[in-house]
């Protein structure tokens, strides 16, 4: 019962307070608006028709003629080019001074690149490799030793061997006999002569076991005399020379 009574009292009090606010508001006094009429006279000005006519003859105002003309391919190219940058929102017509310089530089760079491409293509078609001009030349080693690069097919073995024997240079004579042997093997297509191949490589190339064994013996003699620098006299040379002759006969 008590809460209901409390609610009624609160409601009555709130209604009374609202009425009091409404009653206390002061009345507003309004003044009537007076409409003023502008009675001044207007002096109408007219454009000078002769000046106007003169203006229309100036080239700056020949819009119609400009529109009729087709833009040149150069203008169209640049229009297309700048159009590519549309998403970046560069206002080409009203750029900042810095941007203006940048755009100009960019434009001339593109032109230079185009010219360079054409130039390069012309040179390429002419077969001239101009790029080598800008490349650093490889530093070729000034080798302090003499390159041998002997071609066994260019040596006259018989006369050279004879000469070496006459001079009692049996070491050189054995070397020449061995090189001649390699030449004959190469001529008979039993080995493939290459400057980087070792004697063992040639031994392994021989498929015929008998020939391989014989050639192995000759190689051993050559290696002892040439790489080992074992002294050799006439009787030993004669023995070795016979071995070489026998081998050469077997592959002839």
């Amino acid at each position: 019962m008590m809460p209901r009574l409390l609610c009624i009292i609160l409601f009555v009090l709130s209604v009374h307070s609202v009425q009091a606010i409404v009653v206390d508001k002061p009345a507003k006094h309004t003044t009537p608006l007076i409409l003023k009429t502008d009675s001044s006279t207007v002096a109408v000005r007219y454009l000078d028709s002769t000046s106007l006519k003169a203006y229309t003859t100036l080239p700056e105002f020949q819009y119609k003629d400009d529109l009729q003309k087709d833009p040149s391919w150069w203008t169209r190219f640049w229009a297309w080019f700048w159009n590519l940058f549309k998403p970046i929102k560069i206002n080409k017509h009203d750029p900042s001074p810095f941007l203006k310089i940048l755009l100009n530089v960019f434009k001339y760079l593109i032109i230079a690149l185009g010219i360079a491409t054409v130039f390069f293509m012309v040179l390429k078609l002419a077969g001239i490799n101009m790029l080598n001009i800008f490349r650093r030349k490889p530093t070729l080693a000034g080798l302090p030793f003499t390159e041998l690069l002997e071609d066994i097919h260019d040596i006259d073995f018989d006369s050279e061997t004879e000469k070496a024997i006459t001079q009692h240079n049996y070491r050189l004579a054995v070397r020449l006999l061995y090189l001649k042997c390699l030449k004959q093997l190469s001529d008979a297509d039993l080995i493939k002569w290459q400057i980087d191949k070792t004697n063992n490589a040639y031994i392994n190339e021989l498929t015929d076991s008998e020939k391989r064994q014989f050639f192995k013996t000759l190689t051993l003699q050559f290696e002892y005399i040439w790489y080992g620098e074992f002294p050799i006299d006439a009787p030993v040379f004669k023995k070795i020379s016979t071995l070489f002759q026998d081998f050469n006969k077997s592959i002839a």
Partner: protein
Amino acid sequence: MENENFEQRTDLSKLSAAVDQIKNTLARIIVGQQESIDLLIAGILADGHILIEGVPGVAKTLTAKLLSKAIDAQYSRIQFTPDLMPSDILGTSVFNPKSTEFKFKRGPIFGNIILIDEINRAPAKTQSALFEVMEERQITIDGQTYKMQEPFTVLATQNPVEQEGTYRLPEAQLDRFLFKIEIKYPSLAEEITILTQQHQQKTTDQLSDISPVLSADDIIALRQQVRTLHVEAKLLEFAAKIIYETRNHKSLFLGGSPRASLALINAAKALAAIRGRDFVTPDDIIYIAAPVLRHRIMLTPDKEMEGVSPDDVVAQIIQKIEVPR
């Protein structure tokens, strides 16, 4: 390789017998790896340090341990770890309260055959401790120089640098190794032999059966013999050309040093001795070129990315040079 027309100038019979014995000893446990064993023996005879590289589990350490066992000399093993300090290798000065003096306590580097396991697990600071001892066979600590006993050989093992937890060794240190021997996976037949041998093995301690083949004095004598072997002048030029070309090759960022030239000739001499000759042939130089150079030369980054190996470049260089004949 005897020649009836010529008598050997150097008696290599003892050397040949020792080489055969070492090979037989190693072959009892190690399956295959003939080339690696030849190079290891050549390295010992050429008085060089050897770096053995391979993926885990290919018996790098076992091979090095067996070789050490085959030589009756003071053997020392150092396991390289990331926290190893130079003083852990060389030794350190310890204060003696009784004598009120510092006394130098020698590290494990003092020995004849030093096995450094997993050498590239330690950083550059620790590696630099080996620079002086590997080249000059001495160490300098607190102003005092200590000479190493002869023979002094470092056998180091490492995993390829691509493996987890490894460091690239400094170039200066790599140059001090005579060879880098790469141990590959065994073939299928070799793998089956390994399993069969392991299955039939009664004892797990394989190393206890190994008895020394050579003494430290023998090693010194054999090294002296190898040094006197003959090298023809054109072959010296040939070796020099190979090294020279590595310095101008477009695929290489770093070429071989003069130390590499010396290593090439010394190693070729040792190989010639193993092959029973008292003179070097081009085959010896060509055979030894890749193990001598592969760790000393550095590829350019682009060639490295293309997958070119140092061995490929060495082969290219040799192809360009005429074999003296």
